[in-house]
């Protein structure tokens, strides 16, 4: 902007040079030298660092990068490897799969839920807190129109938006003349499978594993972004005059029958779902299995049964559903990629450093003043 100002002043001077010149001429004008200021800036002599990129000057950088990256990579890789993760696909594509029939018959219109159970065995015990995820594949939550199809004001408890949702929610804005709460395609497609985990001990008794459903959403989402409309006391009253999304069985204020303050817009499962995934294969946090006190592992190795209330059809778009159990480290879930990437890049840098060293020795041995002809 400063430049623009400078420019235009210059330009204007230039343009009306003629007549303003003639008008000022009569006054003879103080003779002022036009000599430019001798400042480093105006004379373009600012002190400067002038790096020259040659093999010689650059190769230390390559070695340094290599030396730093490889240990970091190893560290990350080890960390990632220490994370335990277990994954069960319960979509029911395979005919042998326990959920095959559910998957086959179920559609959005079904009124009856279908239940199936998957058995699996954990080879290793999971020591610390275990995070239970559901994972979907081929589900394009990042589709442009899908991502937009929500009303943040409504979700924030704005009463006017509750009754008159944003146009972005179309065509999931109203149903039968009543505004949908929560409106929009995202809410409409809420993941509604119920997963229950049982530990089968040696004498085949099923022990349910306590699954905590609090704390799975971002704190800011739960407390700032998502809010029930005011008059929180009775959600049924609050949501009167609205209707549930088309695909939903229950209205929003009855999402969690077990816990009263997990209903409405602040239902954590709902909040998690509303945070649209970046990629078509994603997982979302479903429950947390808190570490028990003492030394007993959170999930000991052994047989487990996963009971699924199969409500969510994915086969129509060739989707997959998974349940994932994972511990996490300081840098998140299991992902060896970053460690490998660091090691690879570090090695490449090191290698290039060596190449540069060779080049340097072969072609760049002169020092600058020595090669001047005499």
């Amino acid at each position, binding site marked *: 902007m400063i*430049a*623009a*100002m*400078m*420019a*235009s002043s*210059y*330009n204007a001077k*230039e*343009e009306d040079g*003629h*007549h303003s010149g003639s*008008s000022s*001429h*009569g006054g003879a004008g103080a003779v002022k*030298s*036009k*000599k*430019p*200021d001798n400042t480093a800036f105006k004379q*373009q002599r*600012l*002190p400067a660092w*002038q790096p*020259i*990129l040659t*093999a010689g000057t650059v190769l230390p950088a*390559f070695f340094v990068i290599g030396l730093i990256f490889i240990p*970091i990579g190893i560290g990350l890789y080890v960390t990632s490897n220490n994370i335990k993760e277990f994954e069960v696909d319960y979509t029911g594509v395979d005919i042998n799969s326990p959920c095959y029939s559910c998957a086959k018959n179920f559609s959005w219109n079904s009124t009856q839920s279908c239940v199936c159970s998957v058995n699996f065995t954990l080879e290793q015990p999971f020591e610390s807190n275990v995070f239970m995820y559901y*994972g979907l594949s081929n589900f394009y939550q*990042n*589709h*442009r129109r*899908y*991502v937009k199809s*929500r009303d*943040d004001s409504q979700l924030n408890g704005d009463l006017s938006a509750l009754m008159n949702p944003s*146009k972005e929610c*179309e*065509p999931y804005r109203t149903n039968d003349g009543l505004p949908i709460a929560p409106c929009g395609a995202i809410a*409409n497609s809420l993941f509604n499978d119920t997963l229950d985990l049982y530990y089968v001990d040696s004498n085949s008794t099923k022990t349910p594993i306590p699954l905590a459903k609090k704390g799975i959403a*971002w704190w800011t989402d739960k407390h700032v*972004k998502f809010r029930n409309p005011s008059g929180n006391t009775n959600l049924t009253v609050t949501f009167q005059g609205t209707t549930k999304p088309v695909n939903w069985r229950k209205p929003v204020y009855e999402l969690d029958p077990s816990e009263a303050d997990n209903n409405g817009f602040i239902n954590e499962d709902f909040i998690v779902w509303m*945070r649209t995934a*970046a*990629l078509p294969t*994603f*997982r979302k946090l479903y429950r947390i299995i808190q570490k028990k006190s003492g030394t007993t592992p959170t999930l000991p190795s052994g047989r487990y049964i996963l009971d699924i209330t199969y409500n969510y059809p994915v086969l129509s*778009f060739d989707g997959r559903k998974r349940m994932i159990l994972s511990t996490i480290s300081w840098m*998140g879930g299991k*992902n060896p990629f*970053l460690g490998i*990437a*660091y090691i690879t*890049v570090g090695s490449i*840098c090191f290698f290039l450093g060596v190449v*540069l060293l060779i080049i340097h020795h072969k072609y760049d041995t002169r020092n600058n003043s020595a*090669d*001047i002809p*005499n």
Partner: protein
Amino acid sequence: MARDGEDAGMVKAAKVKRQRKKKTKENKTRTVHANILYDNAKGEENPNRHYANNKIKTTKYTLLSFLPKNLFEQFHRFANVYFVFIALLNFVPVVNAFQPELALAPVVFILSVTAIKDLWEDYRRHRSDKEINHMDCLVYSRVERRYVEKYWKEVRVGDFIRLRCNEILPADVLLLTSSDPDRLCHIETATLDGETNLKQRQVVRSFFDLDCDFDPTKYNSIIECEKPNNDLNRFRGYIIHRSGRRDALYKENLLLRGCTIRNTEEAVGIVIYAGHETKAMLNNNGPRYKRSKLERQMNVDVFWCVIILLVMCLFAAVGHGLWMFQYGDKRPVFDVLSPEGTDLSPIMSAIYLFLTMIIVFQVLIPISLFVSIEIVKICQVFFIHQDMDLYDEETDSHLQCRALNITEDLGQMQYIFSDKTGTLTENKMVFRRCTVAGVEYSHDANARRLAMYQEMDSEEEECTSHGGTLPRRDSVTSHQSARVVLRSQSTKSHRRTGSRAEAKRASILSKHTAFSSPMEKDITPDPQLLDKVNECSSQMDFMRFHSQPMSQLPSDLSDIIDFFIALTICNTVVVSSPNQPRQKVRMRFELKSPVKTIEDFIKRFTPSRLTSGSNSSSSSSLITNRSSNRGCSSILSSPSAESTLTKLDEEKPPNLEHTFSPVPPCYSEKAWAVAEGELRYEAESPDEAALVYAARAYKCSLVGRLPDQVTVELPHLGKLSFELLHTLGFDSTRKRMSVVVRHPLTDQITVYTKGADSVIMDLIKPPNTGNSKGKRQKKIVYRTQNYLNLYAADGLRTLCIAKKVLTKEEYACWLQRHLEAETAIQGREELLFESALRLETNLHLLGATGIEDRLQDGVPETIASLRKAGLQIWVLTGDKQETAVNIAYACKLLEPEEEILTLNADSQEACALLLEESLHYIQAKFLCSSADHAAKAFTANFAPFEIYPSSSPSSSSVPFMVHRLGLVIDGRTLAYALDKSLEDKFLAVARSCRSVLCCRSTPLQKSMVVKLVRNKLKVMTLAIGDGANDVSMIQVADVGVGISGQEGMQAVMASDFALPRFRYLQKLLLVHGHWCYSRLANMILYFFYKNAMFVALIFWYQFYCGFSGSAMIDQWYLIFFNLMFSAFPQLITGTLDKDVSAETLQQLPQLYISGQNSEEYKPYMFWMNMIDAFYQSLVCFFIPYFAYADSDVDLFTWGTPITTLALFTILLHLGIETKTWTWMNWLSISFSIALFFTVALCYNASCPTCYSPSNPYWTMQRLLQDPLFYFLCVITPVTALLPRYFYRACQGTLFPSPVQVGRQLDKLPAETRRNILSLSRVKVGSPLSTKPPFLSLAKPLPKGSNKTEKGSFPSPKASQGSILQTHDTRKCHKRSQSEPLGPKHSEKSLSDLYTLMSTEGDTLPYTKDSQCLDKTLDVSVSSWITSTPQTDSVELPPDRGSSQCVRYTRNSEEGLGSEPSVHQPGRRTEQRPEPASLTTS
């Protein structure tokens, strides 16, 4: 800024249209009636009502029209329309990608910045208009019967205006009366053309004799004149009086708006043109708008970007269609129906998506690029403007950039076309020597004096080189003692005031004159000539005293006195006295009007009055005459001839003696002794003043000039008044001027003519060889011609002085026809021209003068370094061939070791033949050296790396380029050569010559040459000149440079850049041009890269979102990324980056070649950058992709790190490309990063429900707590930039560009660098040559043979000439490293060369007698050779290095007495080159 030019054009076009409409009513002329006649009539009846009034309005907008008009103008730029279209597309719900309001933001931002700028500029214009419109002037009011004060804007055409001294003219006014007794009005036109001398304007002739006060009410004439036009030097029309009499009007009668009245107490005129129709306003066009080469290239790549964009969109659209198609009828939950709830077919969605993608990818077409380029260019202009090295202290002026948008073109020039006079030379004419009546007066002392100034220059300005001095004939050593004395005196005087430049400047400022330096004024007379002058004048005095007729004076003596009289009076010099600046020295001994009518002539030349010279009786007679007129109300009743004659007859004729003492000596002394020495002369052309000063040195001084008489003071004779009967002004076709005077001593009517030797010599009366006088005359002519040739060879401007005595009958006869010509309205110019031709015949040659036009400081050095920079320099001059060639030698344009092809032909066929011959010759030269390397060099562009396979010392024996040729062509031949049929051949010859010199070329030819080269060779051309004759060439060239020198401002007005001096061109091109080019080129490439890289991120994402046009980058980031986050560092780098320091760039001009070859921005670089951009975006996309694969990351928590990474990568990329890191760079980069994080944090914390759909509440905050984010931030930029960094490092070592070598030089400590550079400067060739970097690339080099030349410039296609030259010079230089360096020519060849020059002069038509000439020539040439600028050549071992094939010169025997056009080709064939001995030492 870009639009301003267009606007001016539009405004003008509108105006023209308006005028055209009027034209139907008015046809071709404008008729002006006096307004007062119509004051009481209704407005419609006023015949002047159609003409523009004097209110000026230069603003473009009014308050109301601003918004629509400005927007309209801005939308003229295609890019703006495109972006608005995209923004509007966003309002269509089906395709919208962003929030519609947000999408408007960038466009609105850019538009409003420009609009605010325009508004501000317009406001400034408005203010200045207002100020001007409200200035006061006196306008005659019919009602009040007096002049009343009115605002300028109220002045109308037809008004009478009274002007007082020092007032500025409000409009173009026809001068009707003046208080000046001579009916003159002096004006200063500095605001129009920058010329500071006073111009005289005359009252319209029919009002001339009106002595009574001009009474507007009595005025009833009608003026017919031309339509308004912008030609300042043209005004034609006539005034029709009530009586039906017509009087012609000239430009001398017109006072132009903007000029200032000086030295005239009062003047009255009638307004002819007002307001926008004044010549000054019509001339005032705004800054120029040109499109630079770089921009043209950029536009091609913008076009490619559009293609890439469309391909990407198409790809995405097809992808989306397929994606939709695979789901068939089963619509997945995540594929949302359209808002209407309707289902879209895959094909329809694909089409909609195509539009959406255009919106999403719009950044690929860089909206901010155009704005950024403008900003950067303006900053560049600012810095160029601020450069102290381009500031000239003497004139207190610095470089002006008048075209704001072609700075980078300065770095890409390939051809320079230069004017000579005033551009290469100072256009300060200094009298050097003269020849009178065949005797040469060498003015040795004068030459010494000049040499002394030269030395002082070099001493004080620490200019160590003496290369710029002109060749001096006299040996310097013999006068050393004298010089020491002289110098000590003058330096003392200068030291008092500080530096010489300062002193000069002070004198300029105080005296307002350009011709005031002592160098030009203090001419040391030649003692011999001075004696003769004294002798002559004392004799004349004696004779006058004894009433002897003057014809008894020996003819050589009378020639001398005539010579000086001619010098003194044959000019248009105005005398003024410094004590009263701008006050004309009045010396009026009589009142008499110049001969203007035939009656006047009869009146004055009737026998009875023949003797009336300058005495009081005649004046009294005229006074009575006037007073008799005074009573008359109409000026139209001019006294009839008869009545005057009778009246005059009654008077007593004064006696003869009286005439001979026109001024009593005592009177003159009293009045003038004081001011004598201080008279100053103001001349329209500097050489006029030089001659007057020269004459003054011989005590013949011009003391006063009036329209009708010139007063000259001569030694012993005192003041003599020459009655000035006629002045035939100088014009470029006649190339001479003449004055017709009545000689007060002999009372003869004498014509003094001064002009170019070529024309004068043709007009000399052929001597009658019968008698001795005739023989003598013939001898004089030959001798003079001989000296003229020598002068020319010496680089002096030559002028011939001649005279002619007319009998009264002859004069009367001529006058009769001349007056007819003057009053003619149709074809007046031609008639006057013919009339002048009739007068200027059968002249008697008096002598000739040699005026030195000194080279400007540093011209040879500048030319040398520009040439090293690979620029081809052509000099186009109107001077004669010899002068031009010698100036060319002096300024190192031609070098002694160069061969010169001279093309002089007088017919089309001869010219064709000559060109053919030259081509053969040049080709033959190639062949002759093919035994060695030249042939290989010739094919260099085919096998660039095989040019010099191994340059073992023995084989490198061709020190000279095949291209080391100079071409000299004269104007006549040039006319033939520029013919369609020959132009290709001419170009072929010219482009293989290193320097081309076009002499005697007209302004039109100059521009034709430039146009030819520009269009045919497709090269960048620069034209530089200082005078009006260069304007056309300046306008035609890609870059026009004007020298704001002594010849007014026309060249500057037409130019893109105006320089105070030629030598500044070096820094302007080599430093600023190079910088501007490399900065902008790099910035444009970076812009393309940046946008492509950013957009590609989103493109890759389409593969993971079903090609739905979704973006993981928050739309706010997406839109403001270019506008804010990544905008500043590139602006800083684009403005401040210096790839090589200014010093190195100037010392190694070779670095300029990179700009000429567009090496910073080649088409492939765009694609390389695109590929790099795609690679980097892949890295920036896929590292986070894999790092977050199958995790619970949400869309924008994943997109934000990608944005951050892209920002880091882009900034670091800029870091790699930045060559100079100042604190500003550091600051801007850290500012960018800080800005991004600050904005992101604030944005993410500001509103939990806004910013749909991303709703990024607390995203950034959480990311910053995530270690993974930091790990990504480290690895991604490193990985992304690794290839580029590695490539740059390898390039820097393996095949560094010359620019980088320059940078390495920069890095060395100052001491070492200076040593290296000084070392390299001694060398002929490029200092870079021996650097290994130039060589490598090619395979196995023997150890230590690093210094062999290998294809350092890969495939120099376009400008192979310059490249080859570099190779060759390097080669030559390499070989000659260990040997003494210097011009490689023998004395012999030099003498040959110069003999050639002189003999060419001999072939001029009027010097047929070559024998007698030959002797003189031999003597002079040999004496002269010893003092050529290349004196050091004598010390060189003969033959050293000059082993070029054949020197193409002509021997003197051939040259003599032969017809040039016929023999020249023949001669050339005789000289058919044979492989000469290729000596190696």
